């Protein structure tokens, strides 16, 4: 029997996962309006054919709400992870490339942000930016860059002493060219993997902060809002309000985590030929 190439199967998985997440995102955008419709004639329906995830106490379609919420989470995740990763890249490279007081300052800053309880920082930033959508995005974006920045700094420090970079320096290549030609390409795998692995964190924190009521207003379809609303109805036996959205959130987070792992396998020179 022909053994399926590991590289091929990984690529296939990547394709499927990316397509699935893309589909959820798009479907959520299309269902945004449907998610807001209330119809009291169909309230509190358990899952059935017309409403796969049931309806809530105002007769809103939970399937539409869940998809719209996930879509929002993914988009917020993309945006915030992107911002975080860029901040991490710039600070990490700066820190390692310049050393001295720049390194000390940035390392101190990283320690400070990491030392603050994460969810607290997100809430504080969110409130400072007036809650709402902006609050959530700023809060999550400006609190997730630290660990990636540290990884990149370490990587750059290590690369700086690599023979090929020392050789380039001796040959008179300018500092900027060394960073552009020799450093950044080497950092790309770390950066991409870090970026994708930021998604799950960003999404979970977005959900947490909206769950706690510091994010979006409560008619908005966000996973956190949906879950916090469902809490009130659990004791009356409306299990579907929490189960499906919660499971869907976990699924999306797991998909992103797997995606990150596989991308690393593909990009990392150490494992790419396995």
């Amino acid at each position, binding site marked *: 029997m022909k053994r399926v190439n590991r590289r091929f199967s990984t690529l296939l998985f990547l394709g499927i996962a990316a397509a699935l997440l893309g589909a959820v995102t798009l479907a959520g955008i299309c269902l945004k309006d449907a998610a807001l419709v*209330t*119809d*009291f004639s169909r*309230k509190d329906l358990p899952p059935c054919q017309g409403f796969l995830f049931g309806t809530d*106490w*105002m007769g809103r379609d939970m399937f539409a709400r869940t998809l719209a919420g996930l879509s929002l989470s993914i988009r917020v995740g993309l945006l915030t992870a992107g911002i975080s990763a860029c901040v991490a890249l710039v600070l990490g490279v700066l820190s390692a490339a310049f050393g001295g007081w720049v390194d000390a300052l940035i390392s101190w800053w990283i320690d400070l942000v990491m030392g603050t309880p994460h969810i607290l920082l997100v809430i504080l930033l969110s409130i400072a930016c007036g*809650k709402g959508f902006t609050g959530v995005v700023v809060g999550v974006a400006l609190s997730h860059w630290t660990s990636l920045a540290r990884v990149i700094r370490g990587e750059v420090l290590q690369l700086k002493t690599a023979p090929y970079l020392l050789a380039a320096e001796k040959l008179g290549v300018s500092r900027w060219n060394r960073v552009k030609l020799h450093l950044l390409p080497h950092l790309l795998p770390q950066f991409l993997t870090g970026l994708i*692995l930021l998604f*799950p964190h960003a999404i*979970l924190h977005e*959900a*947490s902060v909206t*769950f706690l*009521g510091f994010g979006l*207003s*409560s*008619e*908005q379809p966000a996973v956190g809002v949906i*879950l*916090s*609303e469902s*809490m*009130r*109805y*659990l*004791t*009356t036996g409306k299990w579907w309000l*929490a189960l499906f959205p*919660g499971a869907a*959130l*976990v699924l999306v*987070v*797991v998909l992103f*985590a*797997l995606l990150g*792992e596989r991308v690393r396998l593909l990009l990392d020179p150490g494992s790419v030929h396995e």
Partner: protein
Amino acid sequence: MRKFLSLLLGAALLLGAFSGCGSPRGEASSVESESSLQDVDQSASVVIAMGPTSEPEAGFDPAYGWGAGEHVHEPLIQSTLTVTNTDLTIGYDLATGISSSEDGLTWTVTIREDVRFTDGEPLTAEDVAFTYNTVKATSSVNDFTMLDHAEAADSATVVFHMTRPFSIWPYTMAIVGIVPEHAYDSATYGGEPIGSGRYMLKQWDRGQQVILEANPDYYGEAPAMDRVTILFMEEDAAFLAAQAGQVDVAYTSATYSGQLLPGYTLEAYDSVDNRGINLPTAAAGGTNENGVAVGNDFTSDVLVRRAINLGVDRQEMIDNVLNGYGSPAYSVCDQMPWYNLASQVEYDPEGAAALLEEAGWRLGEDGVREKDGVKAELTLLYSNGDSVRQALAAELVNQLGELGISCTMEGVGWDTAYDRALSTPLMWGWGAHTPMELYNIYHTQEDTGTALYSPYANSTVDQLMEEALACSDLEESYALWQQAQWNGSTGVTQEGDIPWVWLVNIDHLYWVREGLQVARQKIHPHGHGWSLVNNVDQWSWS
């Protein structure tokens, strides 16, 4: 792989936290109350679950909101000069006679002389005067600007000197618990109150429970319930506590009204706990002194406001949102002695449509009305996290949609809601045992020339309410309050300016253990809490 696993576990943990943090506090407190209840005669004690917001943050000090403020109720631990009867007229507690001077600037109240505080000291007019002067100086929740000062003429007569005539002063006297001058320290009184009321505070575990015991020296009829335990817990915890049989009475809401609890009956008590929206009567464009936008072009047309009032199917709202547990609201004071029946309107969608046509709003092709190229659009605000207000707003959005008004709803926090409401309708909750609420909502402020919560001004309404306050006879003042709502030519009702549209009065729901006779309730005011136990001394087990 480890990273992935930890993420997965993290996600699962998060989910667990979402679904699992329902009721640990409630359970803990009910267990404790059980153990502390073992030594009492069960037939004369009752355990009641109330919401966490019912717990008085500053303790049982009338100066800091106990019994007074937004959620009015009888203070139980202290006596009051007057009480409100079941029909919301005024009766006497400590008082034996009340009279006011012709100009309304002096109130003279005689009090009973056989009353003692629970520490054995007699309650005198000195204590009454001290109490009122104290609450005037320190009360953060009530307006006492109409009182200049109180003084004791002799040991059984207290005289109130007013800064302005205030005919409804007896309603204020019904919520101020009398504290002992000799034992009052504002720092500690809230936690260790001494009063002369039906009950004494036996124990208060902050965040958990309050235990009240009957006052053996009470001057009135001895309380039938010797011990009242109040547990503070969230709604779902209260439901579970009732399910487990740990409480005798548990507050609940329409959400749970479909459930069956063996051994308990669901009791619904009438309330004037209303919900309604404000419709700014000023056109958009203005700002107030803080730069906040004031006014709304769409609702500034009186025909539009009348159409909304007429086109709201209140009964459907009650059926849909409250599972039937409510009554239509037509004013902020339904069923009160000062309520004007002219406020009532019949649901009439055709009439509403005709009013909108008359105002120039013609039905467009997409079902949304238009006027001069402008769509009939309205944003409805509600307070975030309040599921009933959210559902009422959603239902209103649907109903107004049928009238051809395209509505969107938006949740806001109370930090911004008051400002936003000056230009955008907000879902409010009101309802108090005093006509002063009419004044607070509809009367213009001196400095701005418009009402406090929503832009509105009508000099006739203002004048009638001022006359009502200046009136020397309480009974007569009721008629003036009624005229302020509608005097035959102007007012705040359908045929008048209709600056607020009232939607529903929410019934206060309780699970009550079978066999417990809850005494007849007076119409509950806003706030689903202590009002229930106003007459707990008359409850009994059968």
